[in-house]
């Protein structure tokens, strides 16, 4: 089943071959399968929050539409573009590693990192806006409990004020916001970890650690990064695009 050429005892074994594997092929297979299994666990992890989202959205549709309208769709869309682009640069990085071109490989990794950090920066701006508008749920910030200003009838439009549609209440809008923060916060945490992993890849790439025969770490981090991207592709419409066809408030 697994052919035994170039085993660990063999002097010509690749320096990155671990002692418990028979050959590089087995090591690469194990590493890739391991990352796929890990991504399955991540799906289950995010799945619980998607379930909560589904439940509360079906209970409070108008509140969710109101709150979703209040998010900054421009920043959200820009972030989506940034992240998709970063997935592309990551895929290119894997490609260049596979064909052994070091400079493009490192450049692509750096670009991916920069795009990822851009995403996080824009997210930070969004979070700050929420903090300003008192939309951080509950008493997470004890001195600034949830309490957004609500747009009143007949008052001039104020983008910092929450426009409640059709009987939605502030308490229900709070439900949206804890889900928003939980999901995007968890996503951002995964991106930070991803950024850290890419930094490691850049460092080791510059030291010439990866080559066409051993590029499994780049591939595996690539898988992780694509997964984080896919989660965002689900989050963006579910959080930002509800009820946009209605009157934008």
């Amino acid at each position, binding site marked *: 089943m697994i052919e035994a050429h170039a085993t660990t005892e063999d002097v010509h074994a690749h320096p990155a071959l671990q002692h*418990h594997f028979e050959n590089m092929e*087995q090591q690469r297979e194990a590493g890739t399968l*391991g990352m796929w299994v890990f991504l399955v666990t991540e799906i289950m992890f995010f799945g619980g929050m998607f379930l*909560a989202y589904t439940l509360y959205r079906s209970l409070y549709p108008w509140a969710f539409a109101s709150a979703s309208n209040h998010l900054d769709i421009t920043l959200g869309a820009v972030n989506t573009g940034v992240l998709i682009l970063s997935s592309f640069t990551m895929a290119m990085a894997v490609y260049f590693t596979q064909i052994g071109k070091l400079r493009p490989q490192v450049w692509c990794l750096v670009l991916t990192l920069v795009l990822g950090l851009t995403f996080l920066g824009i997210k930070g701006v969004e979070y700050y806006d929420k903090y300003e508008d008192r939309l951080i749920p*509950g008493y997470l910030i004890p001195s600034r409990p949830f309490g957004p200003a609500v747009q009143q009838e007949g008052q001039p439009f104020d983008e910092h004020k929450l426009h409640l549609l059709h009987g939605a209440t502030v308490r229900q809008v*709070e439900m949206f916001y804890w889900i928003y923060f939980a999901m995007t916060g968890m996503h951002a945490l995964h991106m930070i970890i991803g950024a850290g992993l890419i930094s490691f890849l850049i460092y080791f790439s510059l030291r010439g650690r990866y080559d066409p025969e051993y590029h499994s770490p780049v591939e595996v981090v690539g898988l992780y990064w694509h997964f984080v991207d896919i989660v965002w592709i689900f989050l963006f419409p579910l959080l930002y695009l509800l009820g946009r066809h209605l009157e934008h408030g």
Partner: protein
Amino acid sequence: MQAIESFEVPTPPKVNYINAQYGLKSWLLTKDHKRIALLYLGSVTFFFFIGGLYAMMIRLELLTPQGDLLQSTTYNKVFTQHGIIMVFFFLIPSIPATLGNFLIPMMIGAKDLAFPRINLLSWYIYLAGGLITIYALLAGGVDTGWTFYTPFSTTFSNSYVVATGLGIFINGFSSILTGLNFIVTIHTMRAPGMTWFRMPLFIWSHYATSLIMILGTPVIAITVLLLAFERVARVGIFDPALGGDPVLFQHLFWFYSHPAVYIMVLPGMGVISELVANFSRKNIFGYSFVAFSSLAIAVFGFLVWGHHLFVTPQSVYAGMIFSFLSFAVAIPSAIKVFNWTATLYKSSISYDTPMLYALGFIGLFTIGGMTGLFLASLATDVHLSDTYFVIAHFHYIMVGGTLMAYLGGLHYWWPKISGRMYPEGWGRFSALVIFVGFNLTFLPQFVAGYLGMPRRYHAYPPEFQVFNVLSTAGASILGFGMLIPAIYFVWSMRYGKHAEANPWHLPGLEWRTQSPPPTENFEVTPIVTWDAYEFAPREETEVVGKFGPELERI
């Protein structure tokens, strides 16, 4: 002594995984799956005794109908902590992290698991989770029940819910990483010739367990995280007073916690397959059926969580679907029991301690499994829900099942793990004491449950006292019985008879290397051409009562 020794040619001391390197650092920074298994063995035993102490306090309190030994909040903390420690820090890791870690690479002919450093990391994560939980216990304890139902746990409990939740959350990653490691190892690191259907059933059941670990544990992780988030931020996720839904918590919690019970019992079933085959010198009857039944249990186990919500405002129709599926999930377990029993037909049974534990398992698991049917059946579950019947049912599976399997496996593989034999006479004696003590503890609880004694009661109506007294008497015997192996295993590490490479004379791959094994397990990677429990040549295999084509041997 000296004179006799001088007549014997001393065997040259062989280097094995235990004496390969000395020093604390070589153990705490090891990448050897066998050393990691021993690290786990020490820690799970430690947690087991803490959980056992709590059990002792419960049974002592329940001797009398009044709540006179402990204050009620203390008692509430005691049963909560008994559950948390036993479930998360003993039962879930016990067999996979000790026996699984030790044996899986050896049984498939590999040098180690796929990711040795992740294996070590998972032990440290387990320890971190455990220490945080112990901190919570010492700081004041937690009194929500191991099920953490809301809104009591989010809003009303004044105990260390968040700290305990954090401990459980962290511990979950240990489980996930172990499962991940096992899956990748079994897929990619089998020795040449070791096909899927030549693997021991121990491997099949650990594979199924690992599937549950990786799919289910993340859900409890996010549930506990949301619970902590709600408690800290006072957001309404599960608390109706803040707009949340308490039944949502129950769905999320049980979506993991029901498959978790299969995480706890499947490895035990894998051990039993090994014990029954090897101590009757016969291959398991219906090998592929037993293998597939493990997978079936893993899949069906994810579909039945609603049977914990039959008396909640869950829809009656949903209840019916969950009830049907709960009956369905019992069938693969029944198939295993029948196959193990059939294996013994025309076999050659030895009465060694491991076999005694295996026999005990089969009987007690039958009772535990069948009493589960009372709870799968909607109308009886309405009456029995939250009574001592449920407690008796799951202790029959967890203690009568998993713990017996764990002890049986420890005895069976002790010579391989430690290079020493345990004292057989004491082994058989303690197996018997444990069996008797266990039944006396939990059989009366079935009756008390049907009579209406609720769970988690600190004080109870006097007519239940007789059952509680019997139960406590049994618990003392059980506790005494379990101390004996603790003592003689430790004793044997220094004074036990040295074990040869294959003291039981068995064909398994793990027995084809010295006891204890060298660090790299095998001197030469084996090439496997034989089946899992091949005691006799293949040509002599008989197929009984078949119809249709020959049962193909792969």
